[in-house]
């Protein structure tokens, strides 16, 4: 026997799924993201040349065009590009997860505090947010990479340092609306603690907005990570990274087009997948505030 609440939740989920599945762009986005994540997780088992991730050179096979043996061709030292693209997806996804994993909690908590308490707390938090928003993430990442040495960790740090601001703004505006709602006032009247109100009453009402924002952000973080690597400030060789592969292949355009075009397409598809998914979720949850 299911309780009423369970029954209700189930039908709610079923409704959501029904609406979601009727939205073709969202479904395409979800499929792309799921496939990419699966490919990244299973990379060592499904790629034809998993050892080509490390320092392998095979100069007799350099610059081979796409073929049955090498689906995406080979690069300037003879490594299989298909293998490296799949492993490159891994790095891109790890980057997105880490950056957002650091930035979202910070941004959400600051947004909740600023929106709920108002006054000087709001002033301090929101002005700092404005200042941080004024710095373009790519410029910040370039500066961090220049001061520290260029590496995956440093570029993640640089992007995360700026990314929380968007979430602060978003959650701040939602919290401002919610704090005058009856259910919040009711909780206050009952003497609920501030922590309870922030995290049990307000936060659950922000979750859909955060989910939409997160999936949209993932695409952007991946693009910025690729841009940094393209400029030589991200992941260092021989670790496969999509941005680095595009940059290196670019010196062999147009003759060996596969070396930059195919990794570039992988970035495009991955970012597109997250964006379609985000758009779909936004339509689904009917969140106005996100962009």
């Amino acid at each position, binding site marked *: 026997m299911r309780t009423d609440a369970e029954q209700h939740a189930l039908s709610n989920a079923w409704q959501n799924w029904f609406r979601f599945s009727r939205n073709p762009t969202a479904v395409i986005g979800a499929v792309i993201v799921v496939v990419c994540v699966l490919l990244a997780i299973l990379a060592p088992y499904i790629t034809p040349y998993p050892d080509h991730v490390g320092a392998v050179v095979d*100069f007799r096979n350099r610059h081979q065009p796409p073929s049955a043996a090498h689906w995406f061709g080979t690069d300037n*030292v003879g490594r299989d590009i298909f293998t490296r693209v799949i492993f490159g997806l891994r790095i891109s996804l790890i980057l997105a997860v880490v950056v957002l994993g650091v930035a979202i909690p910070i941004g959400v908590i600051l947004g909740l505090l600023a929106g709920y308490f108002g006054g000087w707390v709001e002033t301090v938090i929101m002005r700092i947010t404005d200042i941080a928003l004024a710095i373009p993430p790519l410029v910040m990442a370039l500066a961090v990479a220049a001061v520290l040495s260029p590496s995956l960790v440093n570029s993640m740090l640089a992007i995360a340092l700026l990314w929380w601001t968007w979430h602060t703004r978003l959650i701040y505006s939602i919290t401002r609306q919610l704090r005058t709602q009856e259910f919040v006032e009711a909780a206050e009247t009952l003497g609920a603690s501030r922590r309870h109100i922030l995290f049990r009453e307000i936060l659950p009402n922000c979750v859909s907005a955060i989910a939409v924002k997160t999936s949209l952000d993932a695409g952007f973080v991946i693009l910025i990570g690729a841009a940094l690597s393209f400029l*030589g400030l991200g992941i*260092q*060789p*021989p670790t496969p990274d999509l941005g680095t592969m595009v940059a290196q292949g670019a*010196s062999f355009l147009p003759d060996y087009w596969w070396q930059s075009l195919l990794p570039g397409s992988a970035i495009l598809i991955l970012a597109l997948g997250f964006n379609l998914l985000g758009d779909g979720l936004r339509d689904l949850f009917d969140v106005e505030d996100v962009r």
Partner: protein
Amino acid sequence: MRLLTTTAAAALAVACLGAGAAAAQNVVTQNTVQIFSTIDPAKISDYTDYMASVNLYDGLVTVDSDGNLVPELAESWVVSDDATSVTFTIRPDAHFSDGSPVEAKDVVYSFERLLRINQGPANLFAGIVEPGNVVAEDDKTVTFNLSRTFAPFMATVPSLRILNSDVVIANAGDDDGETFLATNVAGSGPYLLDSWDRGSRMIVKRDPNYYRGWHEGAIDEVRWIVTNDEATVRAMAASGELTMTSPYQSPDTYEALGAMGRFRIDSQPTSTAFYLKLNSRLPPTDDIHIRRAIAHAVDYETIREVIFPGEPMNTVLPEAGFAAFHAGDVEGPVFDMERAAEEVALSSYAGEAIPITLGYVAGTLFEEEISLMLQAHLEALGFVVTQQPDPWNRITEIAGSVETTPNVNQIFFGPTYPSPDSMFFTQYHSDAAGTWASMEWLQDPEIDALIDAARATGDVEEQAEIYKTLQHELDERMVSIPLLAQTVQHAMDNCLEGFDAVPMMSFDYDFYRYRWTC
């Protein structure tokens, strides 16, 4: 009467030329990848500066493709027994482009002005020849008195370009003629400056009265077009405008020009060497066996044939330009992974994971390829490799201390004057330590003593012996792994001949040496 004769002779000459050659001027158009920053002989420093200078000015001596000094303004010279003074005799017929004779006072003036301005080639003479120690014995004889015996001195003389002192003094103004010589030429070179647009081109024309005379097929006009854009170079070649490329084009451009049929791709070994420099004071490359293991783990043939074109090199001194000093009996490093493994086993790091850093210039594709190859081979031997790509300005910085210098470094080095001393002193002498050219941190008194001994003797045979010993000693220590001697490539019009690589910057672009054969 005399005027009449000259005019008649000139008229006759014009008539003869008019019949055949006057219409067909031999014009060479070459692209340069950078602008000409100066034509003042006291300021020249980079390849385009020297390129203009060797055509507009003459020196007392010049350099041939074997690195030998050959007469130019001086017809002969005598070195004193203790090699502390050199006396040059200037050719009796040597004259400047305005017709006035080249005299000893011009040499003295040019030298003193070079030291006063203290830029460009001045550092080659600093501490060797003091101001006032270049003396005019008579109109055509000049003596350089050296502060100490310095065997490579003669090799630095070609960089002293001789100015027409009367003209410069008359136009000296209040800045030692710097303003005047920035845009005017007062020299005796085979070519005269015709026009110069700093950002885009320089055109020089043949001086018909040049004192050394002209040969058949001489180049009448040289046009240098400043562009480093490959597409522009290809377009200029396709339109027939270009006769010779710079040596810095991409392989694709050489290939495209070669396919046009009008060009041949001229490829020659140079004296510029490409090394792996091993930091001999940082673990694990402080162990000779580790250094030898690395030397055996490099696939030299693949590097030369696939990654970066070059000539094999067995010692730290390239054979091209230094044949007389080159130790051909040194075996040199060979690619052999078994021997590499044996050397690792002999080292004090045997049996453990050996961390090692491989440095190279960030963004340089061929260096990254070499570094990846090395990583693959070293990991097979039990090394734990960290790649350390750095931009060039950062490399010059980290080369300043032992701790920041990576274990393995990919470095190009070529002679700045045509003497083996230029290769040995700058790279291996303790006095020159701490630069990107000496990332080995060798600082070995035995090596220092050998380099000093070669500098202190005027006897070329003895010098050659010392330099050969040095190459054996350095091979024993294996601090620099010679990868290859760079080849220089030009796409040249089939009708143009005369490029012959010279072990001194841009002296092979002296167009007096070229001829048009069609």
